[in-house]
Structure formats: C-alpha cells, structure tokens
C-alpha cells in the first residue's frame, strides 16, 4: 500500500511535470536565480573571511631584548604563551639588514652602523593566532625578564580587529537576509503556481481524496523542481567561481586575494544549496497546498 502510494505519487508528479512543463521550468528558474544570488554571496563571505585571516597573519609583535637577556629562556616562555602562532628570533645584524631594506635607495644613510656600531638590540618577532589577541600578548610579554621593549602597530591592530568583527557581522547578516529572501521567493513562486490548481485540489477533496493523496504528487513535484533549480544554480556558480579562480591566479600582483579553494568548504556550500533547493521545493509545496486543503 505504501509502495503503491509512492508509485502513484511518482507517476502523478511525472505526468504533471510533463504536462505543465513551462510552469515547472519557470519555477525552477526562479529557484535557480534565488540560489545563485545566495550562493554568490556565501562565496564572497567565505572569501572575505579568509582574506581577513591572511591579513591578520601579517600582524607581528616586535619584542626588543636587553643586551644581557637569556634568549633560550625567553624563547621557552614565549612558546608557552597561549595564542602564539609563530616565534622568530631576529639577531641585531639581521635587524639592521631589514632596516636598510626599508630605507631602500637611501640605505647609505645607515652605513655607519655596521658591526660593532649597530645600535639595534636583538629581538623576537611573535605572530599571534588572531589579531585580537595581540594587545594582551604584548602586555604579557612586556613583563618577561630581559625584555627591553614590546612594540606592535597598535592602531593598525585595533582597526583590524574592528574590521574583522564588522565583516563577520555584515556577512552573517547578509547571508541570513538573502537566505530569507530566497526562501520567500521560492515559497511565493510555488504558491502562485498553486493558485492555478486551487480548483483541482478542491475537486479532489470532494471526491474523497485524503490530504496526503493530494499533497504527495505536489510535494514530489516541488522537490524535483527545487532540485533542478538548485542544480542549475550550483552549475552556474561552480563554473563562474572556477573561472574567477583561474583568472585571479594569472594576476600575480593580486597576492592578497587568494580565493578559497578548500574542496570541503566549497562542497559544503554547494551541497547546502542543493539541499536548500530540495527542501524549499518540497516544504514550499507542502505549505502552499495546505492552504487549499481546508475544504
């Protein structure tokens, strides 16, 4: 009996899909457009997030040492701190080299400071896991023995932390809004296409058809249409994104725009879109039919 019903639903859905081909295509296209917009934004958000993390990873704490500092001991202490990502020891010679590099063509200005005359201290460069940890870490490090001075781009870090938070809030908000918009579009589309069948549903009720008997084919049809739309959306997005990644790779100067290519992340986004299309198609039909079942 259950198998019989499933068979009935499938057959009815197939018949309806072929007989109302254009209505189905229109609905699927609506779903595809909604999901493309949503999906594109998801990709933007994921990339923005990764970009922020890359920027964060450039933030360094400069730890200048006293001349008599115990380098080994300090290294251990730094390594023991929570939230530290990387520690690099910079002897004063190297510090001078880096300063010269920063001076560029005018590095001859520093030529008097070579060797014994080097006024720079040795130092550690410490990278934090997240930019927001930097201020606390810097303060902790400043109390370690043998530390002469701790410096980091305070304003820069504070700005970065704020921007990161903002990007996250805005991205989340936008994804939620767009998601709600997509759901609304899909449900309204299905409901509109259902108005044309309102009479049909009423007639079935008067013939003694149970609610599930009426709903079944509609829901299945909705799921097929939703999945078709989602497939179209995923194909479009996938192709577009792939093209973008390839193009960006060809522009070596845009070093700081490294698109997300983690297959797990991409698969979960695209899979999520497929699921959303299927779900929306099914649930949307279910809700839309419900209204007309009150006979």
């Amino acid at each position: 009996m259950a198998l019989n019903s499933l068979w009935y639903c499938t057959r009815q859905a197939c018949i309806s899909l072929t007989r109302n081909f254009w209505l189905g295509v229109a609905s699927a296209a609506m779903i595809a457009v909604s999901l493309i917009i949503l999906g594109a934004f998801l990709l933007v958000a994921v990339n923005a997030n990764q970009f922020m993390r890359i920027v964060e990873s450039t933030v360094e704490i400069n730890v200048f040492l006293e001349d008599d500092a115990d380098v080994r001991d300090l290294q251990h202490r730094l390594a023991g701190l929570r939230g530290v990502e990387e520690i690099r020891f910079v002897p004063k010679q190297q510090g001078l080299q880096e300063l010269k590099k920063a001076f560029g063509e005018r590095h001859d200005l520093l030529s008097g400071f070579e060797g014994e005359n080097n006024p720079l201290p040795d130092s550690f460069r410490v990278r934090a896991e997240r930019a927001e940890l930097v201020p606390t870490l810097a303060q902790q490090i400043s109390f370690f023995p043998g530390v002469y001075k701790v410096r980091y781009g305070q304003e820069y870090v504070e700005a970065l932390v704020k921007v990161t938070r903002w990007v996250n809030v805005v991205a989340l908000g936008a994804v939620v809004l767009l998601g709600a918009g997509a759901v609304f579009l899909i449900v309204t589309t299905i409901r509109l296409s259902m108005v044309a069948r309102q009479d049909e549903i009423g007639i079935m009720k008067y013939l003694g058809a149970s609610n599930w008997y009426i709903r079944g084919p509609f829901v299945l049809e909705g799921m097929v249409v939703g999945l078709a739309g989602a497939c179209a959306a995923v194909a479009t997005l996938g192709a577009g994104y792939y093209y973008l990644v390839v193009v960006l790779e060809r522009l070596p100067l845009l070093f700081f725009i490294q698109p997300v290519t983690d297959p797990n992340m991409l698969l979960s986004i695209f899979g999520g879109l497929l699921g959303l299309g299927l779900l929306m198609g099914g649930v949307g039909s279910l809700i839309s039919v419900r209204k007309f079942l009150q006979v």
Partner: protein
Amino acid sequence: MIQLYNVSKVYDNGVPAVSDISLRIAKGEFVFLIGPSGAGKSTLTKLIFREQLPSSGQIFFRGRNILRFGPREVLQLRRQIGVVFQDFRLLPRKTVYENVAFALEVIGRSRKEIRERVPAVLARVGLSGKEDAFPDQLSGGEQQRVGVARAIVKRPLVILADEPTGNLDPDTSREIMDLFEVINRDGTTVVIATHAWDIVNRMRKRVVALENGRLVRDEERGSYSYGA
C-alpha cells in the same frame, strides 16, 4: 440512509438558500429533486456530502450525524457517495480515462480493477473512443457524461446527481436516466436534481419539490409540478 432535520442554509452573503427542510431518504430509494432555478436543489445536495455546512439543523448519513464528523469520517462519507456536479468539475489536467480512474484510485482499488472497470463505464455512457481526450476537448454533453461515469464507477452507496442531463439530447438523457434506474435496482440510493420534466413524468418515482428553499411537495410516484 439520509435524514435531514430542520435543515437551513444561509450563505455568507445572507442569501437563504434552504429553509427548515426535514427529509428522509431510505436505502434503495430513487428520488427526483425538482424546483425552479434558484430553489435550493444544488444547495441541498451539497449539504449531504458536506461540501457546505448547514446554518442550523441536523443531517444524518447511515444513522450518524455528519456534522460531528472529523476529517477522516468526512473522507469516508464522500467515498461512499457518488456525486455528479452541476458544473461537472472534471480535473482539467487529466484525460477522460484518468478522471474516471481517479475516483477508483481514491478509494484504493487495484490497478487491475481500474483497468477493467473504467472502459466498461465509459462505454455505458457512450464515451468509448474519448478516453485520451482532455476535458477541454469535449463537447458539453460529453463532459457531463464523464461526470456521470466518475460518479457511478465506484459503485457508491448513494448517487447524488445534480442536473445530470442538462447538456444532453433527449435520447442520451433517457439512456443516462435508465442507467441510474438500473443502478438503483441493484440497491443504490439515487437522488437526482433535475429540470427534465418529461423524464420525471415518465419514470414516476418519488418527487421532492422545493421552492424558495422550502419543501413544498413530497410525493411517491409523483410528476413534475410544484407550487400552487
């Protein structure tokens, strides 16, 4: 089979379609429901299979008050009644065959049984050869006969036919009415709302006459006439 006690129906817009009607239809009866246009015949049939709910009064089907029915019992009620609608109400996206088969699918009949019964019924209403046509590809009378076929195919306990011959020529009308009579002889209760005075007069069945929503005459072996 069907009992109505002081049933009234006032539509939402204030039109009193049926007023204080009490009526008893026994199992196996054949009843003509007559009356001028707008008398309340269709409303009365709609009350019986719960398309409409009465404003007051009680309606019993096989001894049970249908106003107390839950959704499942309403389904059962409708499955036991075969209705011919005055406005046909065919499913526009299904072929003639599928429309008739649907009535059997709904009550869970096997596909084998459907394949046997549907063509037989279509033949009896004179629609052989029209199986694959859609409703909008049929003449008015053909659509009406699809409605008749759909009502009788499931061999219901009761047939409610609202103006089932309005779009049929005299010969076909008589055939359809004869068909109802044959079904009635097998024990099915038949209630037919009609304007076909010639047929009513010829068949001499019980006649219930309505006028302005009131029952004005109820006569065994009656003829077509109402009012003063």
